[in-house]
């Protein structure tokens, strides 16, 4: 009689499959299931500490201010994240960063429907958000170990999402001659693209190369500083 695999027993324990017929007829598998169940049952004793009475109210008190303050940004974000409008607004933002003499003509939609101050606020939040998410991916990769394949794969998926967004911001910065942002976004984009396009099973050497690249140029630090400045500025203007 062919015995059940450990995987099969695990699925049976969790009710994902039903192997009762085999288990009733096979003493060896039945004994193995008992050993497995004893370990897994013991793990049910791993308890989360109970929160005291009033925990929910206290939690809400701690967060209410931030949530109410975030409301305005929250309502504006759907517009920010729509690629077309973001592109238009990005243009306006970067144009605003350079001198008035060099200011590029503002796109029609941006000039007609959103005030200058509104555009500026939206972009501060959107760019800050982009840099924050990029920073998170970089931190994950620097922390990753080669055997954590699932984690690396998740970082790659996130990098894939960030690449087109980053390209949009970088192209606009380049068009309007914002060299500071262009350089940062260019450097960030190269790393994100390499990560996103890398094989799903990065070798330890490939991972190490990416980590060295991120760390040797202080990319996380640069992204964090610029991102924090933007978000701080955005919050002050909201």
């Amino acid at each position: 009689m062919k015995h059940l695999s450990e995987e099969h027993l695990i699925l049976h324990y969790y009710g994902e499959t039903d192997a009762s017929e085999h288990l009733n007829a096979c003493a060896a598998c039945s004994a193995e299931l008992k050993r497995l169940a004893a370990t897994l049952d013991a793990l049910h004793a791993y308890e989360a500490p109970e929160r005291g009475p009033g925990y929910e109210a206290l939690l809400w008190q701690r967060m209410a201010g931030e949530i109410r303050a975030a409301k305005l940004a929250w309502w504006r974000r759907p517009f920010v994240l729509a690629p077309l409008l973001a592109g238009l607004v990005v243009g306006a933002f970067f144009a605003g960063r350079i001198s008035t003499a060099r200011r590029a003509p503002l796109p029609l939609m941006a000039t007609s429907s959103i005030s200058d101050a509104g555009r500026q606020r939206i972009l501060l939040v959107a760019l800050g958000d982009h840099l924050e998410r990029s920073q998170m991916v970089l931190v994950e990769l620097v922390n990753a170990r080669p055997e954590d394949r699932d984690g690396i794969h998740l970082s790659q998926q996130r990098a894939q999402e960030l690449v087109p967004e980053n390209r949009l911001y970088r192209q606009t910065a380049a068009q309007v001659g914002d060299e500071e942002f262009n350089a940062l976004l260019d450097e960030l984009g190269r790393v994100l693209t390499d990560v996103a396009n890398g094989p799903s099973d990065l070798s330890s050497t490939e991972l190490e190369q990416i980590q060295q690249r991120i760390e040797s140029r202080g990319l996380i630090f640069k992204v964090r500083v610029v991102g924090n400045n933007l978000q701080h500025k955005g919050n002050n203007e909201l």
Partner: protein
Amino acid sequence: MDWTDADAVAQVRAGNPDAFRVLVERHSRAIFRLAFRMTGNEQDAEDAVQETFLRAFKQLKNFDGRSSFSTWLYRVCANCTIDSMRVRKKHEQKRVRDQEDSETDLLAQQASKAPSAEQLTHSREINSMLEPALEQLSVMERTAFVMRHYEGLGIEEIGRILEVQPNAAKHSVFRAVQKLRRALEPLMEGVR
């Protein structure tokens, strides 16, 4: 207020941020339990709970209602907690690597720390025995295991929450159980 989750979500979307309180009050304990079992640390879990709700509020526009609000919130919590665990693991790994000149056998360490049968009656001692075993799991393995074992979520749902194929979720659970068995079975022999 007898609002359902959907009512509260609609209220928030209609511009009433205070309606979010209903969701915080209804789900915060469950989210704390999930975060604690993922992190094994009370303070980290508390931070993850707050971060989860703040992120959920900011991303509420992305909730399309195809899954229940609690499933979506689990996903947000898992992502928040995974992010913070990765940052924490980096610091720990650096510390461990510095001390790795004399490689130690974790199993032997655990065996020497095995508590007596009497101690096992106290949940704190049980936690302190189980936590080192759980710490051996990768972030993905621990998350998938916690969701399957403690939250009773099915493999398909875990895959959806973690945004991986069901097969990847299933194998994360398998690897977690295998590692836990290797770590815990010798200890359990000692207390039987």
